[in-house]
């Protein structure tokens, strides 16, 4: 599960707001869930814990997907890429970046569609009345940013080739 590699030094990279958003969401989810477990076992349940965790995890997951794209750490099968020359490898990377742009643009379009569709319905969670509007916007923004990052990678690679 964990990519715990003692030889991995990528974690020393600079950290920006994205990291702090994701980390804050994760620590919030951890703390709320732990308090909720203790509360349940001592007879003082924390109402709405699941709703807080859902929102926190949404922030963490979205920030994490963008972080992974920035770090170019997506899981791939490298069977072919490891066995071809530099020019063919460059071509494979450009194809990969182009397809990734299309996929995340599709996801962004779908998220935007849903956001617009449900905007006037004022969706919210049951207990804490957390509005879904900002959550849907975060999900859309995440997909759009990842599509833009892959687009930048595509043009950068095309530029490198020239």
């Amino acid at each position, binding site marked *: *599960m*964990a*990519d*715990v*590699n*003692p030889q*991995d030094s*990528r*974690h020393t*990279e600079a*950290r920006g707001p994205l*990291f702090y958003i*994701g*980390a804050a969401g*994760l*620590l919030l*989810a*951890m703390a709320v*869930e*732990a308090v*909720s*477990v203790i509360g349940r076992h001592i007879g003082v349940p924390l109402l709405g814990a699941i709703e807080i*965790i*859902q*929102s926190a*995890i*949404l922030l*963490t*997951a979205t920030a*994490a*997907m*963008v*972080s*992974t794209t920035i*770090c170019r*750490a*997506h*899981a*791939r*099968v490298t*069977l*072919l*890429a490891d066995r071809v020359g530099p020019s063919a490898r460059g071509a*494979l*990377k450009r*194809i*990969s970046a182009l*397809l990734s742009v299309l*996929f*995340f643009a*599709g*996801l962004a*379009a*779908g*998220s935007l*569609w*849903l956001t617009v569709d449900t905007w006037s319905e004022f969706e919210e969670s049951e207990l804490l009345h957390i509005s879904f509007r900002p*959550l*849907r916007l975060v*999900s859309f923004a995440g997909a759009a940013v990842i599509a833009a990052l892959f687009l930048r990678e595509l043009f950068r690679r095309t530029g490198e080739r020239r």
Partner: protein
Amino acid sequence: MSGTLGVIALLVLLTLGVPIGVAMGLVGMVGLMVLLGPEPAIVKSGVVLFETVSRYELGVLPLFLLMAHLCFAAGASRDFFDAAARMIGHRRGGLALASIAGCAGFGAVSGSSLATAATIGLIGLPEMKRRGYSDALATGSIAAGGTLGSIIPPSGALIVFGIIAEESIGKLFTAAILPGITQTLFYMITIVLLCRWRPSIAPTAERASWAERRAALLRVSDVGGLILVVLAGIAFGWFTPTEAASVGAVGSLALCAWRRALSRTTLMNSLAQTLRTTGMIYVVIVGALIFSVFMSVTGLAAQVEALMAGLGGGPIVAIIVMTVLLLLLGSVLDGLALMLLTTPILLPIIVNLGLSPIWFGIYLIRTMEIGFVHPPIGINLYVIQGIAQDTPLTRIFKGVVPFLAADFVHLSFLIAVPALALALPAWLGQ
């Protein structure tokens, strides 16, 4: 027809090196556009994205990852190996046995095959080399032992399967306990038999004193206790898997503090690594879920099922055909891609055959693990070669062959006796 074309397109994209999640998601999205039209395809993709990133049950993933990274930062990685080496390292083959025990213990923390092989390899290989062990036995035992990381809960592969198959992650964790223990025992028996056959491959060594043994056991007791609480909590229903993951993460923070390893840098590094792996897995899950919707619309599973029914012979023949298919695909695809590609096609067949999806999850991950150690991909073998650079790859392949044989016997056992996976959840009333 559209389902078959989709699978072929997916295999082509995966081979071209397109990110796994993107390849699955794009094939699914385009396939849905062709079958249902652009609007439903785009809207369904948006729904899958939002439901996945806001899904409470998936919180289990980053929280267990955080627990693993914090335990690693606390220095727990070598404790399991050290404790086992002190207890049995003096016996013939004792360090190889200790490596398997270390892989099982660390596998419970890391949940990843690669991470387990790399971590225990860094600790165990130099030690075995120093004591004059055969390089084939040393590298083979750790490459095979690393696969325990995928089956011993909490395991990332089980979590991903649970999400894709919409099965209880807690039940999957409980079901994996006995197969994980028996797999560990099968590897240990293999080492004992190898050492009896050719004693020179693993010399005996000096026995550690009881004071050293006590100290090593004491050192591993805190992280061992934490893992036990997490697993027992899930198995006995004290917590849900997400709650257990959060208890584990808080416990590992306390463990870091207890071992005086908690600093701002440690915490930040653990969080950064957790986020990166989390993002990678979320993209894969989103893509796999969209692909899964596409597969269900195509009806490919029903066609494959009809094909298998045509063979006659009932569930056993179907499972044997599936096993051969999975092992062949496992030769060219990595484990995660194999699991995500085959689950939407094979799971409905399993359900229609009257077999348990929980058993199927354990069987699938067990088959996937074999792909980690058999050529031509056998990614664990390359990880081990990266550490033992003076050992040729052919020696590592040779070393892993007896463990592969043990894997096949264990897999056959799991197929013949499904209770190996299903008895514990049933006994605990899950």
